[in-house]
């Protein structure tokens, strides 16, 4: 049998190498790799859903010596989202960059990022996670700098420094654990870790490093300029996937590796930071003058919602209620991934057609770019958390958990965040029907609209109506 776990990483990596070797054919190589990788990962996800946990030891070396890859339900869920979004981004990018000069740099870097992301989700030990994390960070920084404008370069440099700082801090925590327990394998460590100062310091260091990369408020400073100035397909990948990858690791650490050791006070602290992110990020999104900047701040806010789940999860007894919360958290993350990618892709269309993305001057998009406007509207439904999106189901469960736990501040933050999200979304949509003339330079071809539309529909209809399947998938080797 072919090892789909290894394929998920090697396929995009091979594609990246081929794109370096044959820069003229980079676009074709990129598209083929995208299709093949997505198919491979689809097979993997189906395997996980049907047969349960998948694990492989590369070269036959077992832990603690060898490199192990492992896919449980959580990893499969994020892999599925990541690869679908990446496929849509690839299709979009092949039109967006066309045969311009940037394409030569884009495809190798993009496929490298893809391989690193898949590797990160599948890694079964803390050091491999570090390697994948660094690769994700470096590829992402390089992609963010692609346009080469002054703003983009400044933003990317800042992004690079934040990313390195995060990775080093994480590595310090890993080193502490290795010194104490002599293993890096997640499964072995989970059994070995005992409460105590070492375990604690390691958790704080790793969480701290990862929350910089996940742009948790107030460590989000690097995100808005980096995501706002990157080319549209890159922004989509950064906002939908890269920050999600760091968050995925926090989730693994807190509710897989440590589980019982994580205390309520620390979880509350993360929850408060999440609340700050929701309010601050939404407020800044409301004040943003440019569409992509607005979308970037919206990412800060949406990441905050994910951390709002932490105090509830830490307080919940293991059982159905906790699994519901965890599944809701994942559902929220997936919905946001699809919706935010769709929003950035649509924003790229608008920027190409109008020549700018200043919200105050974007009038009449509903008349001139109906499909793009529809995509933005659908994505906004998810970002606001309205039905029939997956985010609505997740938000309902989040509110439900917060009320049941008596965390009224959490309820207020969620409701306020919802209203703020509606306000910033409709700053743009409210202008869409206007008739003040905005010069648009192009009429987009139908097929260029399809990737963004598919993503937006997945977030707003697919995950909303079929979210129940996620619960079954997450049962597979889920956090104990």
């Amino acid at each position, binding site marked *: 049998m072919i090892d789909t776990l290894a394929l998920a990483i090697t396929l995009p990596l091979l594609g990246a190498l081929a794109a370096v070797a044959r820069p003229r054919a980079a676009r074709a190589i990129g598209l083929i790799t995208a299709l093949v990788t997505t198919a491979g990962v689809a097979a993997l996800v189906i395997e996980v859903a049907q047969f349960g946990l998948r694990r492989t030891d590369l070269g036959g070396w077992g832990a603690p010596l060898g490199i192990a890859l492992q896919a449980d339900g959580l990893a499969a869920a994020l892999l599925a989202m990541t690869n679908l979004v990446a496929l849509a981004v690839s299709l979009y990018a092949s039109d967006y960059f066309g045969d311009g000069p940037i394409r030569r740099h884009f495809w190798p870097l993009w496929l490298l990022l893809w391989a690193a992301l898949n590797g990160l989700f599948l890694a079964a030990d803390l050091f491999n996670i570090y390697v994948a994390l660094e690769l994700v960070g470096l590829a992402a920084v390089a992609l963010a700098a692609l346009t080469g404008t002054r703003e983009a370069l400044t933003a990317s440099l800042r992004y690079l420094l934040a990313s390195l700082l995060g990775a080093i801090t994480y590595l310090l925590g890993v080193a502490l654990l290795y010194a104490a327990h002599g293993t890096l394998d997640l499964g072995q460590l989970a059994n070995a870790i005992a409460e105590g100062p070492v375990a604690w310091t390691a958790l704080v260091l790793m969480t701290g490093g990862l929350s910089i990369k996940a742009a948790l408020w107030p460590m989000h400073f690097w995100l808005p300029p980096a995501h706002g100035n990157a080319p549209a397909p890159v922004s989509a990948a950064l906002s939908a996937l890269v920050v999600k990858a760091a968050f995925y690791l926090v989730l693994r650490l807190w509710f897989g590796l440590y589980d019982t050791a994580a205390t309520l006070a620390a979880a509350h602290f993360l929850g408060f930071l999440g609340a700050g992110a929701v309010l601050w990020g939404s407020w800044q999104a409301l004040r943003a003058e440019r569409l992509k900047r607005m979308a970037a701040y919206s990412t800060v806010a949406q990441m905050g919602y994910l951390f709002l789940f932490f105090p509830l999860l830490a307080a919940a007894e293991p059982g*159905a209620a906790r699994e519901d919360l965890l599944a809701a958290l994942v559902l929220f993350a997936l919905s946001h991934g699809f919706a935010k990618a769709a929003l950035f892709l649509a924003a790229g269309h608008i920027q190409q057609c109008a020549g700018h993305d200043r919200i105050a001057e974007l009038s009449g998009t509903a008349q001139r770019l109906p499909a793009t406007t*529809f995509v933005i509207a659908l994505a906004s439904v998810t970002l606001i958390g309205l039905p029939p999106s997956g985010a609505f189901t997740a938000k309902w469960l989040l*509110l439900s958990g917060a*009320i049941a736990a008596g965390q009224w501040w959490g309820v207020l933050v969620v409701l306020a965040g919802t*209203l703020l999200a509606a306000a910033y979304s409709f700053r743009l949509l409210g202008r869409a029907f206007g008739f003040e003339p905005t010069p648009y330079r192009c009429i987009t071809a139908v097929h260029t609209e399809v990737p963004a539309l598919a993503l937006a529909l997945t977030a707003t209809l697919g995950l909303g109506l079929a979210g129940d399947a996620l619960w079954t998938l997450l049962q597979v080797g889920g956090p104990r």
Partner: protein
Amino acid sequence: MTLTAWLPALIVLSSAIPGLVIFFLKEEQVAARTLLNMAGATVKLLLVGLLILGIQDHQVFESRLALAPGLELVLHADALSVLLVALSSGLWFVTTIYAIGYLEGSPYRSRFFGFFSLCVSATVGIALAGNLITFVIFYEILTLTTYPLVAHRGTPQATRGARIYLAYTMIGGVLLLAGAVWLQVLAGPVDFIERGMLAALPVERFGQLQAIFFLLIAGLGVKAALVPLHGWLPQAMVAPAPVSALLHAVAVVKAGAFGIVRIVYDVYGVEFAQALGLLTILAVLASITIVYGSVLALLQDGIKKRLAYSTVSQVSYIALGTALFGPLGTIGGLVHLVHQGLMKITLFFGAGNYAETLGIHKVADLDGVGRRMPWTTLAFTIGALGMIGIPPVAGFISKWYLGIGALKAEMDWAILILAVSSLLNAAYFLPLLYRAWFRDPPAAWPKESIPRGALETRASLLVPPLITAALALALGLFAAAPFGVLEWCRLIAAREYGL
């Protein structure tokens, strides 16, 4: 898979699918669009007919879809839902005909009719919702699908009106969501069950239940335009006439009023709501709205604005009837849900015809219009007389039951409210009728855009108001007929009180 498990879903989809297809039609594909619209409307009517027959046969129609463990999308047809389903499907049919005529030649019709169909699907979803989360889902979808209709014309006033509409409804939606989730945490999944399900909860939770009631009513009150949450409604008047008709008679305000009925009867249970002291407060709120809306209607010189404030007032009759404890008050409220819909849509069709044919927007310009447009004015007159409550138009039946209901509920003051309101109704409607029938027409109309042919205006604009006016008259004349609306409301009331 049997029909009973699919019919409610099919009724929702019968307008949603044509709506989605219409989005992809080109502007000039008028025939295809018209065909899709009318086919959807006809299929929906037939399916609703099937549903009513089945329910009389004691069949249970229910469609379910799990969203997450413990959260289910449930469409369930009971006697109460049939009331709103039948009303909205029927009026959608006539409004579609009207809208096709009204928007002839105007731009962006595919977008318009797409959202128009989705809006009706959402309303039908609200009617068929079998539990609270399903109701919330369709309630929010309704907000989203009506927004583009209000903003449709794209003028600064239209975008402003739409923005105000959205701000109100979003805040209402958030309150409703908070109340719904809170209730579900307290009581588990909240299904809509006749006579409610909350009375079984322990006494120490009653305080929370009262708080939740106000959250829910505040959320629903925005769409039902309860004072002081009514501010969006007059602003939303900038929408094209068919949209106003739909908003006022069928979709938005009805969704709010219907929600209040559901919460009082099928979540709390009317007896339990009375025991918690919630009904009196609701009755007071409704009464204030009734009088306030009528007074403001009197002050408006635009026809549509006057009708808008009249809606604010009239929809609260439904809330008032709900709050009058006793089967008779209930019947009055429920029957008004249908009657107000028919009469108000007639009035909006009439106002739309005046505006579209002769450019008449102000009350003062109505002089002598009855001679130029006798049929429209006849329909308009029937609607207006019904609103005042003059027999034999249907509005009289509503007011009659509400009045007796108030006496039975020992809320005699509500009779006074009804009397004052009727006087005010007369004061703001009769001058219109007087001007239209008895004043001399001016030398030239403000902007005559449809010349007088064999008919006074386009047939597609004339037939719908005549149909709805005739129905409003028939429901009053033959109120006592078996299988009529009144009979149906009696049945619902009997079940809600366990009689």
